[in-house]
């Protein structure tokens, strides 16, 4: 599990993101949290806010409304009611 985290962001309409990443920051109901590879199993509901995905040197942000994050041995899954990519202005 050295290095990469298997991350997928899915909304009811489509799979928004799926792939290997370095780090994901997400807004949990009880505080923001970051997930690195080999994170301990963890599940939380999400607030409305920004999910930030770090791959290599680049950073992508998604606007996420309502959902859940599930971290387990296979990686991180975020189930969002709505998810749209934030285009940097």
């Amino acid at each position, binding site marked *: 599990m050295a290095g990469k985290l298997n991350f997928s962001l899915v909304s009811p309409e489509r799979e928004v993101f799926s792939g290997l990443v370095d780090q994901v920051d997400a807004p949990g*109901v009880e505080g923001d949290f970051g997930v690195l590879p080999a994170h301990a199993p963890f599940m939380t*509901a999400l607030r409305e806010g920004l999910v930030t995905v770090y791959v290599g040197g680049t950073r992508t942000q998604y606007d996420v409304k309502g959902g*859940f994050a599930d971290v387990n041995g296979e990686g991180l899954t975020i189930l969002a009611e709505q998810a749209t990519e934030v285009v940097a202005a």
Partner: protein
Amino acid sequence: MASLKEMRNRIGSVKATQKITKAMQMVAAAKLKRAQDQAESARPYAKKMASVIANLAAGVSGADAPRLLAGTGQDQRHLIVVATADKGLAGGFSTNVIRAARERINSLIANGKDVRIIAVGRKSRDQLSRLYGDKLVRTFELSEHKTVGLPSAQPIAEMIATAFEDGQADVVTLFYSQFRSVISQVPTAKQLIPAVVEGPETQNGAAPIDLNGAVYEYEPSEEEILETLLPRNLTTQILAALYENQAGFFGSQMAAMDNATRNAGDLINALTLQYNRKRQAQITTELIEIIAGAEAL
């Protein structure tokens, strides 16, 4: 026997019909592609949701499990949700779903259960209100929204959840048409409440996901998460069913319209042959009359 003019009109009208069915077939084919993509892109969410719930459900013990998951422990009042299309001209699409639902409803009634019905789609409303008018509690029309999406599934899920919480239902079953391929749609019954926990993961013997001895942490508590997750799961399942229905409907419509176009073609050929025969017979008769007239002079 029809006159030549009548036959010409008849051929003309069949041709016009053929043009319409041909156009409908092509429209359905175009829409099918989109509906199919939509149904497929909705699958990962539903699948992940199922595996998350399977995980959670394994951890929550029987007594304090949320009722959406565990049910009321009774089996007396059934709520049947029948999802079909709004429009017709799609072969036996809606009828097949309704037939499957009807069999279930009849057997439930025969066993002395209370049955209530929610109809989704105009076709299911029309047929079910005729058969079980007194049991139909609510109908939804899909054409209220331009495209099938979350807004069409949400009110249905809310209605079901309320009915369940008010104690009007013990078991909720959804009937819809599963999209296998363009020519094959299978009427399917899916139990929504109590939630059936059987993600594909559980069958592979991999569930709950191997944590290597680690303990899951929950924020907020396990119960609270389940409590918000389950209604959402309801919506997801209904949405998935609506997408499947949509794709199935267009597939079925395409096949039906293809058949109709071909039938119209056959009919036109037969009618044209008849028409030409008759025309030739008439010409021959006229010729004979002219020749006979000329000979008489």
